[in-house]
């Protein structure tokens, strides 16, 4: 069971700036922390307003204020822990797809041609040359619930007929040339090593585009994979450039080409670890202990 911290207390005076995290009787002072494994940060937000008051209040303004306070608190915590060892630092973890692709390109890593579209005309021009495009979010997938339905921004293939659904100046979105792949590779990086998995999903249309759209009848084949040495080297260089000491990289393999898609700094490793028996939970724990004792 993870320990959920129920209290964050900070005190700043002319002698010191201290932060203490508390859970019940247990407490942890910032000065006693050596290592942080950054996954995600959340502050439980119990608005102490009655429902009636809440509805009357200018809802979005309250939310915006609270969100900005939460971010400030988080930033203060990160600032206080700045000299500690972070497995994924929140600053480096914030880099988005476009930035990653550009840095990768400069390191001579193959990347799919990518556009940010904000006009129907522009998309039409692109589709004339690349009749099939992959549509995906610029940053992360965020499940959105609308009523009882859930929407995930899984990668979707679009063709000319997509234009029919579009107004002239749509909200900016990202498209990439469609790569017909032999298989996908997901590589988790920790302690200077990649743990990779090949995902064969070509055999069924459901998952051809995005393996996260899981098909239970024809499951993907997930097998251990070893990156070719030159790709391994280039990707390590990329991670160094992005100042990431861990992350989960997505690649597409087409013939002898390895297309870099993105790196997720706080990516899931369980989905690579269990099918490949990599024992990544153990490796991460050992790595953190090593850093803690360093």
């Amino acid at each position, binding site marked *: 069971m993870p320990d959920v911290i129920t209290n964050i207390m900070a005190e700043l005076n002319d002698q010191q700036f201290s932060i203490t995290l508390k859970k019940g009787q247990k407490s942890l002072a910032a000065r006693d922390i050596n290592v942080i494994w950054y996954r995600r940060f959340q502050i439980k937000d119990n608005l102490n307003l009655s429902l009636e008051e809440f509805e009357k209040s200018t809802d979005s303004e309250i939310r915006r204020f609270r969100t900005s306070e939460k971010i400030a608190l988080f930033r203060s915590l990160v600032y206080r822990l700045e000299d500690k060892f972070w497995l994924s630092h929140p600053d480096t973890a914030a880099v988005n797809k476009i930035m990653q692709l550009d840095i990768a390109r400069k390191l001579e890593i193959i990347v799919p041609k990518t556009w940010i579209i904000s006009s129907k005309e522009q998309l039409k021009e692109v589709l004339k040359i690349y009749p099939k495009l992959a549509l995906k979010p610029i940053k992360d997938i965020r499940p959105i619930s609308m009523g009882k339905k859930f929407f995930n921004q899984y990668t979707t293939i679009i063709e000319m007929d997509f234009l029919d659904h579009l107004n002239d100046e749509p909200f900016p979105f990202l498209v990439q040339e469609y790569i017909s792949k032999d298989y996908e590779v997901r590589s988790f990086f920790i302690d200077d090593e990649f743990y990779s998995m*090949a995902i064969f999903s070509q055999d069924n249309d459901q998952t051809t585009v995005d393996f996260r759209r899981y098909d239970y009848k024809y499951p993907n*084949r997930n*097998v*251990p994979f070893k990156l070719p040495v030159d790709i391994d080297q280039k990707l390590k260089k990329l991670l160094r450039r992005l100042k990431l000491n861990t992350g989960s990289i997505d690649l597409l393999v087409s013939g002898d080409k390895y297309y870099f898609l993105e790196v997720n700094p706080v990516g899931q490793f369980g989905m690579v670890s269990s*099918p490949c028996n990599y024992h990544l*939970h153990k490796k991460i724990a050992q790595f953190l202990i090593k850093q803690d004792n360093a």
Partner: protein
Amino acid sequence: MTKDYFILHGNCIPVKGATRSIICDLQLGKYKYIPNELYDILNLSREHSITDLEEKFDLSEDGSLFHYFEALVKSGYGIFTNTPELFPVLDLEFATYSEVTNAIIDYNSTSTYNLISVIKQLEGLVCEAVQIRNFDGLNIDILEKISTTFSESSIPIFEIILKHDIIVEGRLESILENNSRFRYVIVHSSPVDKSIEIKNSKVHFTKKSIDSSSHCGQISSFFFTVNIESFTEALAYNSCLNKKISIDTNGEIKNCPSFEKSFGIINNTKLVDVLRNLEFKKVWKINKDQISTCKDCEFRYICTDCRAYTKNGGLFDKPQKCSYNPYIGEWEN
């Protein structure tokens, strides 16, 4: 582009038996029979091209090898590739974080030890699954107490086998409604056979009487488990006794309730101290490769095991309740 190599997927592991082999698909949880000749070829197929293999095994003429490979690709067990070195075989190391993963606790109307404290100890050891077996009837108050203790514990999986009685049957539903950790409930000596589901629990009523621990140790293909965890465990350890601790109806701490050897009585011995005793862990290391007959059986890493009831009573003999003969490849009855 022609592909020079055939490889099995890294999580499809061939196992050779006396008369035939199987490929265990550890991802999708199934297996497939293949002839032993093909096993030998598959063992070399990551290092040798198909043409090489054909020459080596004198199969160049008929093209049969290619057809075998093609069939394996079609059924999803492997691929043709030019880069076999990029697709390593699964790492077959077994690792879990807990010192004990499963426990059998026998508790009868005559038992006098403190069951609740046992469950608390198991929780402290991060045990994953606990099975409680009752042969002669369980007082309803005790059953409710067990249920409450489990629902408040962090032990994820809980099973119970108990003797039918009218009061228990009447209360079972409300107990299971409040405790989602029961995976299985088996009610033996029941007036009828029936299976029902209550919340997350499967409840089987059976007319059979399970009146002692001697009912344990059944071997059948029905109990085969094909996945990474149990396969890698079976490769190195005993597929029944590894990381198991048991208490018999008298409160004796044992590897299995059916064993003679006791490592102390639960009233005055802590489970954690028994686990420090190296003698206790000796049987954990008896894998199928050390067991007569099983060592020649193609099912040895997907099969369960039993060390309490064996063919000639020896610790390294084949399980008594197995009717499979790997030397003719048949189940005998």
